[in-house]
C-alpha cells in the first residue's frame, strides 16, 4: 500500500501564502486599537475616576472606547484597585471567558504591588502573577488624565502588536496556573479549557503544560449542569429531577 501524503495546513503556514495578508493584519490591528470595548471590574476605590473619564469632561468614546457589560463582548478588562483573593477568582473566571485578543489594565498602585494593602492577608499583591497585565496605571488613585494617557499608550501598543499579554497567558499557562494554585489551593479549576484553546489556535508554547497543569488534570471535576430551584406553591421543587 502506498502512503498518502496529506498536507496539513496550519494557520501559520496559511498566513504566508496570501499576498495581502500583511495589509489585512495591519488593518485589523488598526481597528483593534481604535475600537476597544471595556469591561470594568471595579474592585477597589480606583473605579471612582472612571465615570469622569467616560462622561462629558474627558469622553473616552472619542477614542473608540466604550463600556460593555459582559466578558464575551469585551476586549479590555479594567481592574481598578486592590483585588481580594475571593475577587481574584472571579476576575480570572471573567478573563478566561473573554475572546482573544484581550488586554488587562491594572489601574491603581494596589494592583502593581499591593499598595497600602501590602500587609493585608486577604489581597493579592501583584496582579501580573495571576493574569497577563498589558498596562499598569499607577497612582493612588490615578486621575482621569492618567487613565486616558494609559489608554493611548495601550492603543499604540496594540497598533504595533506589542500588547500580546493574551498570547503569553496561553504560552506560559503553567506558570500562571501555578501562582493561582498557590493562592487558591490545589483543587482550583475554571470552566474554560485554556490548554485546549491554546492548541486549537496554535498558541501553545513550551510553558503551556507542566507540573501545575498535571495537578489541575488530577484534581479536575467534570462540570455539572446548573440546577435551578424555584418555589411552587410553598414547596421547594428541584428542576431536573425525575418525578414518578
Amino acid at each position, binding site marked *: 500500500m502506498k502512503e498518502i501524503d496529506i498536507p496539513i495546513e496550519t494557520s501559520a503556514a496559511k498566513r504566508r501564502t496570501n499576498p495581502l495578508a500583511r495589509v489585512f493584519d495591519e*488593518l*485589523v490591528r*488598526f*481597528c*483593534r486599537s*481604535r*475600537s476597544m470595548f471595556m469591561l470594568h471590574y471595579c474592585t477597589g476605590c480606583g473605579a471612582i475616576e472612571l465615570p469622569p473619564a467616560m*462622561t*462629558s469632561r474627558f*469622553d473616552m*468614546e*472619542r477614542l*473608540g472606547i*466604550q463600556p460593555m*457589560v*459582559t466578558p*464575551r*463582548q469585551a*476586549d479590555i478588562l479594567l481592574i481598578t484597585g486592590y483585588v481580594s483573593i475571593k475577587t481574584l477568582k472571579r476576575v480570572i473566571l471573567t478573563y478566561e471567558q*473573554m*475572546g*482573544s*485578543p484581550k488586554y488587562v489594565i491594572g489601574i491603581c498602585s494596589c494592583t502593581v504591588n499591593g499598595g497600602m494593602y501590602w500587609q493585608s492577608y486577604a489581597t493579592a499583591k501583584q496582579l501580573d502573577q495571576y493574569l497577563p497585565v498589558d498596562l499598569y496605571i499607577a497612582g493612588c488613585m490615578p486621575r482621569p488624565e492618567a487613565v486616558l494617557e494609559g489608554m493611548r499608550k495601550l492603543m499604540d501598543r496594540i497598533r504595533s502588536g506589542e500588547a500580546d499579554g493574551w498570547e503569553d497567558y496561553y504560552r506560559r499557562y503553567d506558570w500562571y496556573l501555578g501562582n493561582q494554585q498557590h493562592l487558591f489551593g490545589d483543587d482550583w479549576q475554571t470552566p474554560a479549557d485554556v490548554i485546549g*484553546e491554546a492548541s486549537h*489556535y496554535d498558541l501553545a508554547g513550551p510553558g503551556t503544560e507542566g507540573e501545575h497543569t498535571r495537578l489541575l488534570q488530577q484534581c479536575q471535576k467534570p462540570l455539572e449542569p446548573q440546577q435551578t430551584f424555584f418555589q411552587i406553591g410553598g414547596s421547594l421543587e428541584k428542576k431536573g429531577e425525575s418525578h414518578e
Partner: protein
Amino acid sequence: MSIQILLMELVLMPLVAFVVGLFMVLMLRRIGAKLQRRVGPPMMQPLYDIVKLYGKKTQISHGWMHDIGIIMAVGGYVAAETLLPVPGMDGIADKGGLVTLVYVMMIPSLGLALGVGQCANPNGSIGIARALTAMLAYDVPFVIVVFGVAWYFGTTNLVDIIAIQQAGGVSGWGAIAMPLLAIAGLFALQGMLGKQPFEIYIAPAEIATGPMVEMSGKYLGGLFVMQCFQLYTAGVLYVSLFLGGGENWLFFLIKVFAVVAIPMTVAFLFPRYKTEQMIRLMWKWPVMIGLLGLAFVMH
C-alpha cells in the same frame, strides 16, 4: 427588466443599505454624545467596531443553532432590503409588496430567538422573551398603520404607493393625508428600533444586553451589522409609506436620516419602561390613534 440588472440590484440594495446603516449608527451615537455634551465617536467608528469584532482570534460558538440564528437575523434583513424600493432601484419590490415585507421583517427576531436559545444563558432567554413580547406589542399598531396606508392608496405594492404620493407632490404625501396614522407609525417605529422608552430587551444595566449576552467576536459583529440594516429598514419603510419615498438620492437620504433621528433623539431623553407598561402603552395610545386614523381613512 433584464436578469443582469435585476441581479445587480439585488446585490447593490443590501450593500447600499449597509453603508447607509453604518452612518445611521454613527448618527445615533453622535446624537447621544451631543445630548450629553460629549464629542462622540469618530466618523469611521461603526466600521472599526465591526472589523475588529470579525478580526477576533477566538470565536466562541455555542453550537450550530447559534450560527444559524445569526445568519437568519442578518439574512432576514438582507431579504427585506431587496423588497424596499430606493431611487432608481426597485429590486423585487413590486413582486413582493407590503405584506411580504412585514413578514420578512419578523424573521430576524425569530432567528435571534433560535440562536440565543442555544447559548443557555438565563439573561439571554429573558432578553428574547422580552424581545418577542415587545414585537407583539408594537406589531399591533404597526399592522393597523400598514393596513390603513394600503387601504388609502388601494394597493399593497410599495412601488405604486410611492408613485401615487410623488404624483401628488408634497400635499400627496401619506403624512399629510393620514396624519393620525403617521403619528401611530412613529410610536411603532420607536418600539421596532427598541429605543429607550421601549428598550426592554437590551437593558444593559438589568439583564446585561439580553440577547447579546453570550455573543462574542463575529457573532456580535453580525448583530452590529444587523443593527445597521434594522435602522435603515425602519427608516426607509416609514419614508416610503408617509413621506413619498425618494425622488432622488439626496432627498431620499435627507428624509430617511431625519426620520431615524426622531426615535434616537427621543431615546436619549427617557429611561426605560417595564415590559407590561410597554404593552399597555403600545396597545392603548398608538392603537387608539391608529384606529381613529383608520376610521377617517375608511370613511
